[in-house]
């Protein structure tokens, strides 16, 4: 997983952002459309969850009841409807995912921006700091932090956010460095524009789309991180999230009861959302940051056609 993050480091061939580009290139990709649709669906469910599943923990049947016509995914270890639990869990999982990703994007974006724009000593210091943070293994750190600082929702969001900003920082820094050298930025500077204007009007707009694409990818990681933090028992016990559902299933011995419907569905939900985020984020990044294509290196194959008739 981290290999995929590392590979997203430096823009090899960054595309210049201009109006209409996003609509034309990014949103037309089938990947993006599918991913966005799936995400939209889940977000809708999460937003409407108080309406769709007002009391998810209400016992509606026997413990670990298999799927039936009334309760499509059966019941969990407390006899509550799995579907309602999943809907309720979507809320927390998605909130944590989005919020943590935003925290990461903010920290990483700020560090990358300052580093890339000002360079020099500031750059060296910030990048050294980033390197140290990268080196710390994320999982143990999260476990330790969660154990130390308590298990509230805010803490979980902050912990995840503070771990995952490093790739964003590097990505933003590389992009900012490249944009800073563009002639129109130099021109604006030679006109007397101050740093604030240069960053706000010229640099940030070019960097923003890539940052957004990266943030979408971060959402995937954050949701996954939340899931296994909660699964390890470090999450907020009063909240329902998909990770919590999996944890409950294990502590309630779902396996012994062969109640696959209590374990698999939450995992599948996480997988689908992570996949959707990855699809959107990756295709956005590919459009904005195309890797060098190697199509032209393939065996020479050009088409032949008979000579068109000349006009009489």
């Amino acid at each position, binding site marked *: 997983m981290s290999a995929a993050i590392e590979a997203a480091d430096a823009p090899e061939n960054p595309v210049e952002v201009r109006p209409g580009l996003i609509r034309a290139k990014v949103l037309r990709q089938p990947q993006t459309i599918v991913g966005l649709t799936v995400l939209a669906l889940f977000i809708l469910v999460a937003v409407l969850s108080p309406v769709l599943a007002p009391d998810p923990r209400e016992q509606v049947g026997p413990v670990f009841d298999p799927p039936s016509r009334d309760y499509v995914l059966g019941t969990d270890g407390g006899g509550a409807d799995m579907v309602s639990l999943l809907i309720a869990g979507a809320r927390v999982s998605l909130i944590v995912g989005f919020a943590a990703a935003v925290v990461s994007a903010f920290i990483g974006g700020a560090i990358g921006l300052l580093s890339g724009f000002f360079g020099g000593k500031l750059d060296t210091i910030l990048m050294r700091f980033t390197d140290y943070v990268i080196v710390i293994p994320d999982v143990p750190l999260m476990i330790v932090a969660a154990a130390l600082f308590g298990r509230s929702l805010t803490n979980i969001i902050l912990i995840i956010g503070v771990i995952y900003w490093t790739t964003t920082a590097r990505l933003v820094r590389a992009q900012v460095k490249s944009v800073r050298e563009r002639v*129109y930025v130099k021109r604006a500077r030679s*006109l007397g524009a101050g740093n604030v204007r240069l960053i706000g009007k010229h640099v940030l707009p070019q960097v923003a789309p890539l940052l957004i694409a990266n943030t979408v990818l971060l959402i995937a990681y954050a949701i996954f991180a939340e899931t296994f933090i909660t699964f390890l028992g470090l999450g907020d016990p009063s909240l329902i999230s998909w990770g919590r559902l999996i944890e409950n299933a294990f502590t309630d011995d779902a396996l012994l009861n062969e109640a696959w419907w209590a374990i698999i569905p939450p995992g599948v939900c996480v997988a689908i959302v992570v996949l959707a985020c990855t699809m959107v984020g990756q295709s956005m990044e590919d459009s904005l940051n195309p890797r060098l294509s190697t199509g032209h290196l393939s065996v020479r194959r050009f088409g032949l056609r008979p000579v068109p008739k000349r006009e009489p």
Partner: protein
Amino acid sequence: MSEAGSVNGAPLLEVENLVVRYPLPRGLIGTLRRWPRAHVHAVEGVSFSLRQGEMLALVGESGCGKTTTAQTVLRLLEPDDGRIRFRGEDISRLPPRRLRSLRRRMQIIYQDPYESLDPRFRVRDTVEEPLVIHGLGSKVERRADVLRALEQAGLTPPDLFLDRYPHQLSGGQRQRVAIAASLVLDPDVLVADEPVSMLDVSVRAGVLAILSELRGQGLGILMITHDLSTAARFADRIAVMYLGRIVEEGPADEIIQNAQHPYTRALLSVVPQRDPRARSTPQILRGETPNSVRIPPGCRFHPRCPMAIEECKAVDPQLARPKAATSDSHLAACIRV
């Protein structure tokens, strides 16, 4: 051939003995062992002046220091030594705060029309930006200034171009927008760094004509170019640079017809001409320009000079009027002329 026109106005820019050096990194071992730092001697004592209504072409091959000179004159780079005077005021050591008002009077146009404009800005935003940065004029006044600048740059009718994005414009049009953006502040000096080298041939003359016309409006134009033919046809004066020094300067016609310095003569002899029947005897110098880290002793051109004598290895010549010059302002740095 440049027009006689309104040359010899008041001097706008006076540069004296400008020196710009870049230190080369020494690496870890070099720093620990305290090796003496090597420098790239980009500009090694350059002096010239630019008058109102005059176009001075700074000509030379890559590495001669012409771009560094232009950027230092605009204070985009720091000089290591020497003086730069703008309208009589010494600006070589101006603090950043004062530099801002200077920026309004001296503008630069860059080589690459495809990267000069922010792709997210419409033409009107790009041309208006300088006014916004310096907080000049009301919205209405600014719009009028923008339209005027676009017209001056040859983009007519200007209304047609206001709302376009750079990707909807050709290379020549983009360069004109860049010119308009630099005119909107009503500058006194315009530095054009290879303004047409990335444009198609059929479009170049139009852009150069705009620059030419601006002289009539009192601007002084410093044009950096490697193309002697362009300098010959559009500039009033030409200064030829080699390894950080001006080796010859004078009125454009004089330099082209009566060059004295052996480097200038060699350069002119190898510039291809349009007429296939024009067969000059090309004086192809051997080797390439040495890098500006280790400059040859004595005359910096002597290793490649077809006229070099013993004395040239020891004497570093200053600019002086050559014996065969037909103009008082024709100077060459060679002891043999």
